[in-house]
Structure formats: structure tokens, C-alpha cells
């Protein structure tokens, strides 16, 4: 069957201050296919699609839609031309109803009145056609993330999308929700919708797409048919070199218990006494990595805050190195040998406006030799930072530039260098590789395994199930503030996935 070209990009260039985001990209998308855009973070996948959708403007190159030149790319024009985009961060307003979110920007049949009832009927027609079931009167903030995504898709379809772009759609979903999404996309595709699917996950891409285009550093490396490629080739194309599929882990040498949590609960008194954490008990011993898997916003942040002393539990007991630290301050915990790599490196891990050197001594600045009397010892600090930058391979023009100017991977290296250069005995790590490219991810993972070999106890909290499975000796699953299951590296992804969705509870003993 001869393929009809639906959309083509010709020589698209986009330059952000200091970075070439897209460098002469050529790409054809056929009508009725599911086309995956595969690449690492920062490869330019989203940028290319944002240009099509009109959120950015290209600095060079042309777009052709159904054989005609597509100019004046604005979101409004994109909608008119049947292009719908589901962004990574949903474009929904939480305190508007589903209905209000869908009709936003639409022209009423009887202006200036809103005519909700007219829109309700129209939306039902579309929802019926595509078999989507959604209660239109709920507030968006009341529904699950998976449902919000359906709302986004319905919104695009209602606006007449023939081409649906999904930007990393599974990053917020459980494995089961992802499968549901894929089924839905498959359905839509059979009913004639062309789909562009942006992802950095090989499994997904291989599961859902007809053809796959690989982007790397702003260049289109190759476009291949799914039937003519495999995981191995794709990962090589994506990263530019061979990738380690699994890590060689040394035999575990467990020592004494380091961290013990006993029935930790947290109640939010500002929000109808909601229980954020429910009787969490766990322990981590020397030389062990315990992973906590779970979908985002199930209490991970609160748990990390409590363990690091930033927040006090409502009830329960925490001990570290045999001492009761339930009421200890973060400062005391750091002095005892705790290191904390927080999820949000830009806001919690670093002071972005401070220099690299200043950031390397954020926690230890009051200690000798960094401080003498009350004055900071500039030259000592600079020397310390320079050594750290060298040892942890931080790419920065100097230690005096603001840490803001560094890439995400290098920012994370500054944090890791800082935390590892202390006498750490317990390491709390949250989302350590979020938004990093494959090279940096490998680096971070190796550092964590190194810490384990040194006998440091590590508690790893991550929403990336692959990461948790690769690194952990034991896996705990958190759901709605509760540990709902225990697993090890042999437990299958789908079983852990069920626990992450809260549909499979087991009693967990210490």
C-alpha cells in the first residue's frame, strides 16, 4: 500500500540561547501511522513537536501538512488544522470542571453566553464515537492522573484532532495505566487518528509504534520500521554507543541495622486531617540498597522529608545508628552521617544563584577548614571545589560560575560529590536520575552501587521502576502513603505494577 505523507518537516532549526536544540531535522509522518520519536532528554523531541504546535517558532526550515506549506504555526492554527497535543505536564486547570477545561477557547454558538448544555451534548457525541467514558462535571483535581490524560485526549479529539501528539505520556502512569493508554491509542489509530508518540523508553516504543525516528543532540539520526529493528539497535542509535543493560552487582554484605522506621504516620491538619503517611515501618542495614517504588505523589516526598528531619511525623519512631532520632534536627542527622540527595535538585539540592564552589559546602561551611572564626576561607573552599569537580567529572568552566548555568547532569554531580565527600553512613536518595541522559544516569547508578559496596546503607525512593529494580536489594512499594508490598529483583514488573496501583496489598513485615 503506498503511504500518504501527512506531515513533513524540512530542515528545521531551532536555537535556544547557547544551545542548538534542533539542527536541520527532516522527518516524514504517514497518514494513519503511529510514529514514535525516540531520544534522550534534551535530544529535541519535544522542541520539534512544540514548533509544530506553535508553542515555539523555528529559526529555520519549513513544515508541510497534507502537502501544503504550513505557516503561521500558533496553537490556535494548529487546532484548526487538526493537530492536537498532549503535553507532558497536562494542560488542564485543576479547579475548573472537566467540561470547562474542554470548552476553553471554544466559540460558543450563542455568544457571549457559555452554553454549557450545548457543549455537553457535542462532547458526548465525540466521547461516544471513540468510546471514552468521563464524568464532565468533576473538577479536574478530583480525578486520577490517568483520567486527566483521558480528558486531555478527549479535549484534543473534540477539537477535531486528526493528528495526536503525545509527549512522554507514560511518565506519570503506572504500568497498568500505560497499557490502558496504549489500548486506547491503538483504538484511536484504527479509527483513523495519526499518532506521534514521544518517548525515551524503548519498550513502549517497540510496543506501540509502526515507525520510529531517533533523535540525538538535535539531529535526526534515523527513521526505521519497527519490524526491521530491535531494542539493541535502537538504544545504540539513541545514545550513540553501547549501553549497559544490567549492572554487575557485588554479593551483598549486610551489616548492622542503620535506619529503622516504626509506624510512622503523618496527618495533614491543614487539609481535612488527610493521612499522608500510614504507619510506615521499614529498615535499612549497612551495605544494602532498599528501594521504594511507587507512582508519584503517593507520600514519597513526605517520607523523605521526615527521614531527613525536615518535617516531624505525627506519630511513630525513627532510629538511626541505634539512637532515637524522631525529634532530631536535620543538622544533627547530618552530623551523625546522613546524606540526602533530594528529588528537586534545582530547588532543594542546590542554591542556583550560588557558585559551584559555594554549593559544595552548603552543609559543611561552618566546619573547619572552611571556616576560621567567623570568616569563610575562600581559597580553601575553592581548592576543595576544584578537587571535587575533578573527581566527580563535573563539566563547568570554573567553580565560580553560578550552578544554574550547569546542565542537569552536572548539577546532580555537584550534589553527589558534595554528599559523597562527607563521612556518609546513611544515604537517602530521591529520584536521583530524573531528567538526566543515559550517560549521567549510568554515572549516578554506579556511584550508588559504589556506596553500597563501601557498606553505606542506601534508601532509594524513585518513581522509575526500572531504576529501583536495577539497583535495589529489596523493594518496597508505596501507595497512598502506605507500604503495600514487598518485592525483590526477581519479582516481575507487572506484579510490582499492580502493587503500585494499589490493587494488590500484602502484609509487610520488617
Amino acid at each position, binding site marked *: 500500500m503506498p503511504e500518504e505523507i501527512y506531515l513533513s518537516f524540512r530542515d528545521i532549526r531551532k536555537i*535556544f540561547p547557547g544551545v542548538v536544540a534542533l539542527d536541520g531535522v527532516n522527518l516524514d509522518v504517514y497518514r494513519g501511522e503511529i510514529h514514535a520519536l525516540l531520544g534522550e532528554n534534551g535530544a529535541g523531541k519535544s522542541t520539534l513537536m512544540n514548533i509544530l504546535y506553535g508553542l515555539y517558532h523555528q529559526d529555520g526550515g519549513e513544515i508541510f501538512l497534507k502537502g501544503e506549506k504550513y505557516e503561521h504555526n500558533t496553537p490556535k492554527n494548529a487546532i484548526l488544522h487538526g493537530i492536537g497535543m498532549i503535553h507532558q505536564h497536562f494542560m488542564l486547570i485543576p479547579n475548573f470542571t472537566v467540561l470547562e477545561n474542554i470548552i476553553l477557547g471554544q466559540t*460558543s454558538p450563542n455568544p457571549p453566553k457559555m452554553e454549557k448544555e450545548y457543549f455537553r451534548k457535542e462532547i458526548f457525541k465525540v466521547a461516544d464515537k471513540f468510546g471514552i467514558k468521563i464524568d464532565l462535571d468533576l473538577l479536574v483535581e478530583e480525578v486520577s492522573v490517568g483520567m486527566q490524560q483521558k480528558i486531555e485526549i478527549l479535549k484534543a479529539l473534540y477539537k477535531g484532532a486528526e493528528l495526536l501528539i503525545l509527549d512522554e505520556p507514560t511518565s506519570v502512569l503506572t504500568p497498568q495505566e500505560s497499557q490502558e493508554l496504549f489500548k486506547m491509542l491503538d483504538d484511536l489509530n484504527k479509527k483513523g487518528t495519526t499518532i506521534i508518540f514521544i518517548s525515551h523508553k524503548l519498550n513502549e516504543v517497540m510496543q506501540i509504534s509502526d515507525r520510529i525516528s531517533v533523535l540525538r543532540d538535535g539531529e535526526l539520526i534515523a527513521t526505521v520500521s519497527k519490524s526491521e529493528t530491535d531494542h539493541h539497535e535502537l538504544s545504540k542509535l539513541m545514545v550513540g554507543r553501547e549501553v549497559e543493560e544490567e549492572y554487575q552487582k557485588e554479593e551483598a554484605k549486610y551489616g548492622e541495622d542503620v535506619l529503622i522506621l516504626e509506624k510512622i504516620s503523618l496527618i495533614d491538619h491543614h487539609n481535612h486531617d488527610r493521612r499522608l503517611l500510614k504507619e510506615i515501618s521499614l529498615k535499612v542495614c549497612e551495605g544494602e540498597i532498599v528501594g521504594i517504588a511507587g507512582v508519584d505523589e503517593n507520600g514519597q516526598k513526605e517520607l523523605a522529608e521526615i527521614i531527613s528531619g525536615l518535617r516531624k511525623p505525627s506519630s511513630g519512631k525513627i532510629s538511626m545508628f541505634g539512637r532515637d532520632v524522631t525529634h532530631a534536627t536535620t543538622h544533627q542527622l547530618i552530623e551523625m552521617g546522613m546524606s540526602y540527595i533530594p528529588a528537586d535538585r534545582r530547588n532543594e539540592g542546590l542554591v542556583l544563584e550560588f557558585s559551584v564552589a559555594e554549593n559544595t559546602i552548603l552543609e559543611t561551611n561552618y566546619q573547619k577548614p572552611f571556616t576560621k572564626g567567623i570568616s569563610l576561607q575562600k581559597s580553601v573552599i575553592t581548592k576543595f571545589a576544584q578537587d571535587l569537580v575533578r573527581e566527580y567529572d563535573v563539566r563547568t568552566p570554573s567553580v565560580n560560575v553560578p550552578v544554574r548555568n550547569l546542565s542537569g547532569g552536572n548539577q546532580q554531580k555537584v550534589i553527589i560529590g558534595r554528599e559523597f565527600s562527607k563521612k556518609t553512613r546513611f544515604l537517602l536518595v530521591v529520584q536521583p536520575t530524573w531528567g538526566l541522559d543515559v550517560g549521567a544516569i549510568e554515572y549516578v547508578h554506579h556511584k550508588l552501587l559504589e556506596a553500597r559496596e563501601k557498606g553505606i546503607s542506601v534508601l532509594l525512593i524513585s518513581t522509575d521502576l526500572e531504576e529501583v529494580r536495577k539497583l535495589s536489594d529489596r523493594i518496597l512499594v508505596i501507595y497512598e502513603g502506605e507500604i503495600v508490598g514487598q518485592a525483590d529483583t526477581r519479582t516481575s514488573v507487572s506484579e510490582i505494577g499492580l502493587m503500585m496501583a494499589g490493587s494488590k496489598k500484602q502484609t509487610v513485615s520488617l
Partner: protein
Amino acid sequence: MDAALLTTLTTWLAMSIRMSVPLLFPSLGGLLAQKAGVYNFGLEGMMLCGAFFGYWVSNKTGSPWLGLLAAIISGALLALLLAFTSIRLRVSQLVIGLGIGIFSLGFTGYLFRLVPSEAGGVAPAAPLFPKVNFGALRGIPFIGDTFLSHDWMVYAAYGFAAIIAWFFYRTTAGLNFRAVGENPQVADTAGINVILYRYLAVIISGALAAMGGAYLTLTQTAYFTENITAGRGWIAISAIILGKFNPWGVLLACLLFGAADSGQMHLQFMEVGIPYQFLLMVPYIMAIIAMTGVVGKVRSPAAMGKPYAKH
């Protein structure tokens, strides 16, 4: 009920309504700007300019209507400055708002000194808007004195509240407008012109604030005095919070502040033995209490105060 008490109640209520109006105009203006995501901290300054130019042009031309027009133009121009700097140049909205307030205080005070005094050293009076003539209805006991004894600007202020409520919750444009203040990027991707909505919101906001100022000089005092607004532009901001960002709520909040103001004036007449300086504080203390969250959790527009940058 004895007659004296009824009279007191009637005058107190009528006065509460009158005192709420110079708060209601700027509160509704501030509400419009904030709902579109821009903090208008210049309300006080815009009110002052409205009060002065309303007075001055009315005095010069003999027409309060022209005075009101001048007031609206002055407020809209100041708002345009706020809009341009905060939306286009993305300067801190707080700094510009405060700047407008300080500038207006000095500027109107200076211009007022240039107005030549009449014999006896007093400034000339401006012609005022008359009371609306309700004919026979005015004679209805209690109702007539309380509700039908005002000039048209009072009814206009309350009408604006209703119109804005209808606009926000019953029209597509209102839905779009609120979306701009909640999440401009969502609005943008839905094809809504974020920048245009924000400009319009701020400019109308300035015009309304200036009407609040002009209300003072064109219906109440007939004279301008330095700092005649006495912080009403700031109380308006707390009225918006007390009203939970809802036009009807804001209306009630303004009525409450108006009642407090008129109450303290009554207390001054009654010579209850409290120094009048303390009574004057009442509305301001209420504003502070309002800001401390007595009304529970107030959800402000999520993108309020944040400039929208497009790549």
C-alpha cells in the same frame, strides 16, 4: 421599634452603602486584574488620580460627567503603565504598583496646590452628581431612605459587581479570562490571547479604581484634599481576599468594611468616650483580620503575579 433607633439604623445602613462604594470600585478593579493573573498594587494611586482629575475637570468645566471621564482616563493611563511594565517588560508588579501609589500621592498633592484658592483661602468646589430621583418610591418608609437615597454611581458600582459575576461564570470570554489567571500556558494552547486579556483586565481595573476615587470628590466632598483616599486602595486588596476572589463575596466584604466605617463615624457622634483616633482604625484593623485568614482557605488564581513568557 422606637423612632430614634429606626432613624439611626436607617442612616447607618444608608451610610454603610455609601461608604462601601469607594471600596467596591477599586475592589472590583483589583479582582479583574488578579483574576487575569496580574497584581494591581497601584489601586490606591489610580484612585487618587481619579479623585483629583474628577474634581479638577468637574470644577473647570462645570460638568461632573466630564470630570468622571477625566478620572477614568487618568486611571486607565496609569494602568496602561502598569500593564506595559508588568506584562511586556515583566518588571516586578509590586514595585510598579508601589511606584504608582507614591507618584500619585505626590503628583495630585502638587497639582492641587496649583489650583487657585477662592476668597477666604478655600479651594473652589466641584459640581456634584445629583441623587437619583425615584419619585414616589422615595417615600417608602425605611426602604426609601436606606436604598433609594443615593446617586447613580452607587447603583453603578453594585451593577458592576453583578455584571462581573455574570461575565466570569456565565460567558465563554469569562471562562477564558479566568483561565488566563490560572494557567496562561493552558490558555495559550487553547488559542486564547493571553496578552490581550491581561492588558484589557489591567486597564479596566485602573478605570474602575479611578471611578472609586472620583466617587469621593464627585458625590461626597466636592473638594479634593491630599491623600483623600486614605488607604482605600489597600483595603480593597484585603476585600478581594475576604471575598474569596468572587465578585459577590467582594461585594459583601466591601459592604462589611463600609458598615465598619460608617459605624465608627456614628460612634464618634455618640461620644462613647473612645478617642476618635481609635475609632478611625476600625476598618484598617478589620482589613488586617481579613488578611489573616478568618474566612478559611482562600484560593487565589494560580498564576497571579507571574508574568507570562513565550519562547
